[in-house]
């Protein structure tokens, strides 16, 4: 069942790369700063949070330094939300190609992970710096830090792939999801611990992405205090299987979806 999907990805590997490159290049054309925007955009909110902490506006309510908490939280959240939104709208954004060329949906979905990947790469040095400064990780655990992109990206991919079917029919979905992601970031403890904001709304902690973020964040803060790696690995494995299953199912409906684009 999964073999055709994996073969498809291998066959179209150069398309995935050039599609991603095209998106990045076309977004930086006609800008005075060009490529610099790719770095500046994801860095600004992070630098803002660090600045707010330095001047004492944000105070840590728990043992984890707020800068660490915010940088890791916002990065993982944006990888997840960027992947979900990007993958969900990928078929519609590429309808010019999909309606004229027989390109399968799978490489289009994967290419959509390019943008969140760049966001993650730009923030990675900062994450390394904060981990070095505040956490007590071994060198092996440090190596795992770049890999933390994948659980969130794969989660975003699987949700995005499923939602892309809905988005082919109902285009309001992107606006709804945009609002949802923006507000959930603040309401569910991704960057501000929930009790300090809405202590009465503890159910917000049941945002499962927040739980995943919390596990990964604590793992990189102090590996000894959590069994996050097992949780994440199990989650990751299930997620990959689920995504492959979903993609192989959707590929059977590609003709129907193309007509809707």
């Amino acid at each position, binding site marked *: 069942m999964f073999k055709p999907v994996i073969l498809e990805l291998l*066959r179209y590997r150069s398309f995935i790369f050039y599609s991603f490159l095209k998106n990045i290049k076309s977004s930086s054309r006609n800008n005075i700063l060009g490529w610099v925007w790719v770095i500046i955009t994801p860095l600004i909110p992070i630098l803002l949070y660090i600045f707010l902490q330095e001047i004492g506006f944000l105070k840590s309510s728990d043992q984890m330094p707020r800068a660490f908490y915010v940088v890791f939280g916002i990065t993982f959240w944006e990888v997840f939300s960027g992947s979900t939104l990007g993958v969900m709208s990928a078929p519609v954004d590429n309808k*010019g190609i999909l309606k*004229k060329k027989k390109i399968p949906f799978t490489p289009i979905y994967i290419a959509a992970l390019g943008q969140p990947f760049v966001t993650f790469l730009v923030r990675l040095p900062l994450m390394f710096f904060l981990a070095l400064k505040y956490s007590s990780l071994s060198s092996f655990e440090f190596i795992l830090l770049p890999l933390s992109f994948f659980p969130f990206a794969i989660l975003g991919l699987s949700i995005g792939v499923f939602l892309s079917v*809905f988005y082919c029919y*109902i285009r309001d979905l992107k606006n709804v999801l945009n609002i949802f992601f923006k507000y959930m970031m603040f309401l569910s403890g991704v960057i501000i611990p929930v009790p300090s904001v809405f202590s009465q709304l503890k159910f917000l902690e049941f945002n499962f992405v927040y739980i995943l973020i919390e596990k990964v964040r604590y793992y990189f803060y102090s590996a000894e205090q959590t069994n996050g790696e097992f949780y994440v690995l199990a989650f990751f494995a299930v997620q990959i299987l689920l995504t492959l299953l979903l993609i192989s199912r959707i590929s059977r409906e590609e003709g*129907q979806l193309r007509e809707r684009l």
Partner: protein
Amino acid sequence: MNLIEVNEVSKFFEKSEKKNVVRELAKTVLRILGIVKKKAISKEANHFTALKEISFSIKKGEAIALIGRNGAGKSTLLKIINGLYDPSEGSVKVNGKIQALIELGAGFHYDLTGRENLLFAVSMIPNLKKKDREFLINEIIEFSELNEFIDFPVKKYSSGMKARLGFSAAIFANPDILLVDEVLSVGDFRFRQKCLRKINEIRKDAAVVLVSHNLQTVKLFCTRALLFDRGTIVFDGDVQKAINLYRKSEARDEKEILKNPNLGEDFHNNEIVSDLEVFWCDEFLTPRKVFSKNEPIYLFFKATLLVDCGKDLVFSMPFWRDNINISSISSEYDSCDLSVSVLKKGQLLKIHNIFNSGPIDSCFILTLKSEYLVRKILEPFEISGFDARVHGVALCSFKEEPKKEEN
């Protein structure tokens, strides 16, 4: 071996998308989740039929033309063969690699350079190694003759240059089956010949399916033609026969032509002119709709004039082909008696036929000074005998002349 086998293919589309969006979405999601099994979509009341039980096959080396009016189902069939649409009923079996020249430059980003866009276009060809990719890009650039401009943003290209780049990018994929939809009018005449030469080259080892309204290209290029009418194949075989049938069906469908807004509207001032009768005929007043090339065309008209208009009454008649005004006749230039008594008996006009083969639309007009009395769109007549090598709407003739020597 058949490269394409189309078996009993039908395609239905919904008439109203908005009403059924939730139902269709629910069906798709249930199929994806495996709750409902995928089955052939049956025709429902809110569906219209784009293709109805189409069957044919194409062998290697064949070049097939799909001809028919707009909305006949040609492009939908091309999309089904290309795998972009699923057939509602029936099946399509394709043995080989398909390349479609459907919309040139699909996916091009105008802010990127020609080379960057080519890199992206070539990356759509699966399993291509880096070395082959670079070789292919150089070949494409050479073919498109855009070497000087290839590192310029595509937005700075002329429309011809964009089309050349798009065509070149699409044609170099070494397909077994080439699908061409109305894109053989790229660039200038020399480049068009180059494209046709390239397609002919590909054709030796592949099959070509061509959708075109340009019957001249179809005649010169294809070995077989399928004539489509309202989603069905009405003829499959010789290209010349298919073209003749197509032209006849076009002329037959008079009502649609008469509705064409470019020909204007009928008008009749009953207070001045009544009992109007106008028709195309031969010299014996037998009504005719088809004339041969060079054969005189006769027009008969009679009417009762309720007011004597004298010499201020003018008869004129413009001729159109494909909504383009190509010629006209008028009593202002040629003598024509439009007196009350002559019009009551009827006037027969012999018109020198200069038209090339094809349908001709016309309009009978009587004016009194600048005022319209009658404006009647006539049934089109047909000039028979299609020849792909004779061009244009009018026919120039010649005869041999002995040389005259100066003393």
